[in-house]
């Protein structure tokens, strides 16, 4: 019984000993035939591989609502294979692949291609996001229905990277996707207020002489969108919410009973615009890093459920796009492999959220927003074995050279972050075992 196996497949069964399900009392889990076969203390069952999980936490497989896999088009930054490997290493069993590829995922053909590449890779379910408008240009609706009816079964639509700033187009998109229970995920950024924007507009941008990205550019769009969603009775999801003011608007919309959800990235829970003083473009991201007050408001909102989900906005970039002066650097950070550790540091170790809460914000709720029926399920007998085994006691410096993602643009290099993914299971198959990628045999 060695924890490492030469080859895993869905015929391999696992017995996980003494794991704390959602942080509860230690129990054993038996995984076989793709499902959780049994849960109990001192389980007397035979399994191919036994894992001593003493001290470790079991969570449902994480679901990311916001991932840039870059394929097709920027395979130098990431491919579906490397991106889903990174996802597995981070404990994810499903990711939503954003539409800003080249070509843009604005047709059934492209979303099916991305979906199929995910199936072939086998590390993580890839749920493509469809573009709202043709070419992300904000002029004309893409064929949203065709993308929904394709094999990719798209339900989340977003022009992420760009804002659907035309109010009429946004209203129509919100209305149109109701026909198939879709949701528009808005990248809230008023374009005129953010022309030439380089970082959060505030004390630091003034001193550094970098073009400001004011909070109001995000908040004004969110305010408009929640009102539009209410007016037409649609579902709205707010991407990477980053300011205290945005939290207040979403809180107000929810108090009205409107169907509005929101996500926050790990980096907005941890980092502030003070980091930009180094002019190191590894801190350049959109929306930008905000102030310490914003960080506190975001943590509180995630804790009280105003913010529904943590989403990585994993945005890989090749080295040359970051190894340059700030103004010409690309925006974005990789985040799949550090997300859970950042959430432990900012939410769990601070006492704001317990592991049950982490499961809710990183698995249950994002799965529900994306309407992924097989993910975000309870950890109980008979459920699909989409699980992550996490060691919260681990401490170590982040080493980008060990990443599975093809890119290295992490703001956490050398930073001590708590916790480490020990194993990830996708429908009973280990995609990660003993902290290392398991070889996959392609589609099930």
């Amino acid at each position, binding site marked *: 019984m060695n924890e490492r196996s030469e080859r895993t497949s869905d015929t391999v069964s696992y017995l996980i000993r003494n794991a704390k399900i959602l942080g509860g009392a230690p129990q054993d889990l038996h995984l076989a035939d793709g499902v959780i076969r049994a849960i109990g203390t001192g389980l007397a069952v035979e399994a191919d591989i036994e894992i001593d999980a003493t001290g470790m936490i079991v969570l449902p497989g994480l679901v990311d609502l916001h991932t840039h896999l870059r394929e097709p088009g920027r395979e130098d930054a990431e491919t579906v294979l490397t991106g889903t490997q990174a996802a597995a290493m981070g404990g994810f069993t499903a990711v939503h692949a954003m539409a800003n590829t080249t070509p843009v995922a604005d047709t059934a053909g492209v979303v099916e291609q991305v979906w199929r590449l995910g199936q072939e890779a086998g590390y993580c379910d890839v749920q493509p996001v469809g573009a709202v408008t043709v070419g992300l240009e904000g002029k004309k609706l893409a064929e949203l229905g065709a993308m929904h009816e394709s094999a990719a079964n798209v339900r989340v639509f977003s022009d992420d990277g760009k804002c659907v700033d035309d109010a009429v187009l946004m209203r129509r998109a919100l209305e149109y996707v109701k026909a198939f229970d879709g949701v528009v995920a808005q990248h809230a950024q008023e374009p005129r207020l953010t022309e030439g924007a380089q970082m959060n507009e505030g004390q630091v941008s003034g001193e550094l002489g970098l073009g400001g990205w004011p909070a109001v550019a995000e908040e004004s769009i969110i305010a408009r969108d929640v009102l539009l969603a209410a007016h037409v009775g649609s579902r709205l999801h707010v991407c990477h919410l980053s300011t205290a003011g945005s939290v207040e608007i979403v809180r107000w919309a929810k108090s009205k009973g409107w169907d509005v959800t929101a996500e926050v990235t790990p980096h907005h829970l941890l980092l502030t615009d003070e980091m930009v003083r180094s002019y190191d473009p590894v801190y350049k991201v959109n929306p930008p890093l905000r102030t310490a007050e914003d960080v506190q408001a975001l943590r509180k909102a995630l804790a009280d459920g105003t913010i529904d989900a943590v989403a990585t906005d994993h945005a890989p970039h090749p080295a040359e796009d970051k190894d340059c*002066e700030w103004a010409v650097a690309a925006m974005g950070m990789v985040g799949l492999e550090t997300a859970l550790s950042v959430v432990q540091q900012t939410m769990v170790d601070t006492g704001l959220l317990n592991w049950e809460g982490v499961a809710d914000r990183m698995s249950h709720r994002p799965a529900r927003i994306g309407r992924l029926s097989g993910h975000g399920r309870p950890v109980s007998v008979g459920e699909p074995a989409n699980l992550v085994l996490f060691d919260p006691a681990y401490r170590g410096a982040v080493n980008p050279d060990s990443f599975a993602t093809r890119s290295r643009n992490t703001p956490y290099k050398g930073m001590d972050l708590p916790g480490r993914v020990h194993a990830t299971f996708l429908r009973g198959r280990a995609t990660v075992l003993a902290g290392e990628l398991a070889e996959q045999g392609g589609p099930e």
Partner: protein
Amino acid sequence: MKRHLVSAADLSRDDALLILDTAEELAQLSGRAVKKLPTLRGRTVVNLFFEDSTRTKTSFEVAEKRLSADVINFSAKGSSVSKGESLKDTALTLQAMGADAVVIRHHASGAPARLAQSDWLHGSVINAGDGTHEHPTQALLDAFTMRRHLNAGAGNDLAGRRVTIVGDVLHSRVARSNVHLLTTLGAQVTFVAPPTLLPIGIENWPCEVSYDLDSVLPKTDALMMLRVQRERMNAAFFPTEREYSRRYGMNGIRMAQLPEHAIVMHPGPMVRGMEITAEVADSPRCTVVEQVANGVSVRMAVLYLLLGGAVFADGPADTAPRTDSVENAQ
């Protein structure tokens, strides 16, 4: 101070005074027939200019040559830089060529900071103006000019002197460097501008802010007018050129409101008729031409202190140039 001069905020009071005092001694040279010192003989200084700048570039070049440095002008226009070569590769190239110092002017805020922090090159980095961030040698020459007029003498600072800076503070690297340096030297800085041309968060800067030029003039020892680009009008920073001139421009009537001893400064290039009238620009109180001359002395002092081996505040500071010739030159 460190190996580099990237921000005026990096300068302690002692650093700043050492530079000003050194510049004062080096200024004696300009009156001599032979204006050259051998101090930087055999050292290579690269002027790396990504942005057009005749004045600053010429000023640095004169300073470098007066110190006998080997000078290389690396202009982004017409070089591989304009063909898409990265800042990193340019820096690696200069390193390979043995640059002892790189004087960089760049349109991107923070580019000199990137160079200084990277391991791309090992020489000193001197910021000759980066985007809308800083222009520390301009602030040094401004402080030098103010000291000569308002508190002349080696070792003197600008304690209690009232400096008013008027114009496009939002986009001004001169304003940013000046507020750091002048505050370090004990001066009181007041910015005057329409609210649209002031950065968010300025209330936390170590300065006063006013929207009313006329009320500040009588309480001013040095008045610095900043260039205002006409194109700003198109982005709605102010309605028209004429309205800007009326509300924030310097003219003869306003000059009469200044105290007798007050000077009028401008970092150049001036937009006559916009922020300053010819009457003011050509008056004896205007120090524009003097600032240009002082710029050479101050840049010589910076190069001398960074490359000549003297250590700024964090070591046993040399209060006078250490090696050769300045004493001899007097």
